[in-house]
């Protein structure tokens, strides 16, 4: 049950290569769980940019001095995030959330490994908190292109049983990809379940590694979204359902969190010939 709130920027701060923005958005925090995302209108009332921008929720506070707040972390990518990065405290901002399906939580105290790529660690940190509260062992693997593109390293260290870092250029941790170090972590931590958020190639690699080892894994994907609320059908990807059939499912409402082995990674960006309703040819 998402809300649309006429919020207000509370703060915006630089964190490495990213910006962390906190928005006063009463009502949204109470409903938000780790893995949910929010969608923001950008550019002001005379904006030429019609579509909302989506961001995974990093942190929420039920009630602050100013009412409930939502925090997210973003990279300046194009025109909309560039506009967002120029916001100042007290600027109005229209926010819709929480959106999507959050990470599903284990019922028992299991060993969870969290894998974040770039700003993909943002939704994993509140997840770690919840998992710890449930008595889970939490191991974290963070990867990024370079040290400044790692997010939440210290926080992750504090709340995890172990942390491994990789960067493509070696400016922090091991030079390489998260998939290079993940097998070792999975073994050492006796991982029961994996949660991952980051770029699609990373999610795919993580899913593949988990599948080889038979470890269940949940991934939060990032597909271009026009509406974020399930009405437009732009954000689909091929996912195998309970019945074994592949459907083009909406990542905004049926995701963004999917079971890694249900996503047809090879076929993302296509309509597999065996998908329900695929063109006969």
């Amino acid at each position: 049950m998402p809300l649309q709130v006429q919020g207000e920027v509370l703060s915006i701060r630089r964190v490495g290569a990213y910006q962390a923005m906190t928005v006063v958005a009463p009502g949204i925090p109470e409903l938000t769980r780790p893995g949910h995302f929010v969608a923001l209108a950008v550019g002001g009332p005379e904006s030429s940019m019609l579509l909302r921008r989506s961001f995974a929720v990093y942190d929420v506070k039920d009630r602050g001095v100013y009412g409930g707040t939502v925090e997210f972390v973003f990279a300046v990518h194009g025109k909309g995030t560039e506009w967002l990065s120029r916001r100042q405290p007290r600027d109005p901002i229209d926010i819709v959330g929480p959106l999507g399906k959050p990470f599903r939580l284990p019922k028992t105290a299991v060993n969870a490994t969290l894998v974040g790529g770039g700003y993909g660690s943002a939704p994993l940190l509140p997840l770690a908190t919840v998992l710890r509260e449930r008595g889970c062992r939490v191991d974290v693997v963070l990867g990024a292109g370079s040290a400044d593109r790692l997010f939440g390293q210290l926080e992750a260290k504090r709340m995890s049983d172990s942390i491994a870092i990789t960067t493509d250029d070696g400016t922090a941790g091991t030079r390489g990809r998260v998939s290079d170090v993940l097998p070792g972590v999975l073994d050492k931590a006796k991982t029961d379940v994996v949660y991952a958020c980051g770029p699609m190639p990373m999610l795919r690699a993580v899913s593949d590694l988990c599948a080889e080892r038979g470890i269940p894994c949940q991934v939060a994907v990032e597909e271009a979204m026009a509406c974020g609320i399930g009405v437009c059908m732009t954000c689909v990807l091929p996912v195998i359902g309970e019945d074994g059939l592949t459907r083009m499912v909406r990542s905004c409402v049926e995701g963004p969190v999917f079971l890694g082995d249900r996503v047809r990674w090879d076929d993302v960006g296509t309509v597999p010939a065996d998908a329900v309703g695929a063109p006969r040819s």
Partner: protein
Amino acid sequence: MTGTSTTTDMSTTLAGVRFPNPVFTASGCAAAGQELQQFFDVASLGGVVTKSIMLAARSGRATPRMAETPSGMLNSIGLQGPGIDAFLEKDLAWLHGKGARAVVSIAGGSVEDYATLASRLRGHDGIAMVEVNISCPNVESRGEVFACDPRAASAVVSAVRKNVAPGIPVFAKLSPDVTDIALIARSCVDAGADGLSLINTLLGMVIDTDTMRPKLAGVTGGLSGPAIRPVAVRCTWQVHQALPDVPILGMGGIRTGLDALELLLAGASAVSVGTTVFNDPTAPVRILRELQQALADRGIERLSDVVGLAHRPLDPPQPTVPTGPIGDLLPEEVEA
């Protein structure tokens, strides 16, 4: 003068069917209402126009399916949907249960498809109107779009009209990508359309300057949003001028109550809100509220008084700042 918003009669009549107000959703921009129900009661709208449904389940096109453009967007969804049977059983039933007025949009690849779809609707409750999306490639004619050829358009409309229960209006939804939209409009009406929905998206394209290839997997897509509003107003104006007695459901880039008023003044009897919903999920109810206020501010007593009002002849001189009900300024020949 800022009248109280309770004074204007917002009801509108489309081909004999009365709707409590003139603000509808647009096909493909509201699914079948369930998701928007989280934000507002869809039964409070004039009607919910559902995503165009085909006979069988359909996967749609590959992604990327969208690109943002200046004050607009492109989409190439490819009519993904569950097929008519699942739609009727699940989506239509849900809308009916909520008390919403469903306008069922149908789409096919052949005249036969459309006829079958229309007949499947028989006996189902809760259908206020049928919208025929004829902006589909005709698989039997080298993929030419029905809406671009008066004969093909006419064949589809007549097949649908024959099969839909009498009493349920059939609206043909036209494409603006034609040389003479009034010509297509006329052939649809001659074939039995009770009204016209204007406009579908414009064919557009974006090239990604990084990959140096088309941005959409489907290469071209449909352009929608405020960018196209002037085209929507023009098409509505032209069709209303050519066929003043034919009701029009107007759409294309409506973002505010004043935008809705613009379409009504051009000749639409009701409007659909499409792309704007992506920007603002509560837009349809906001637009309804804004429209109601705008009419009250202008001293309009009945919504129907503004339908096509911009066509009135220049004499007698119009009030620049209207101060009273405009109803009595209406020339005889304007449809009301």
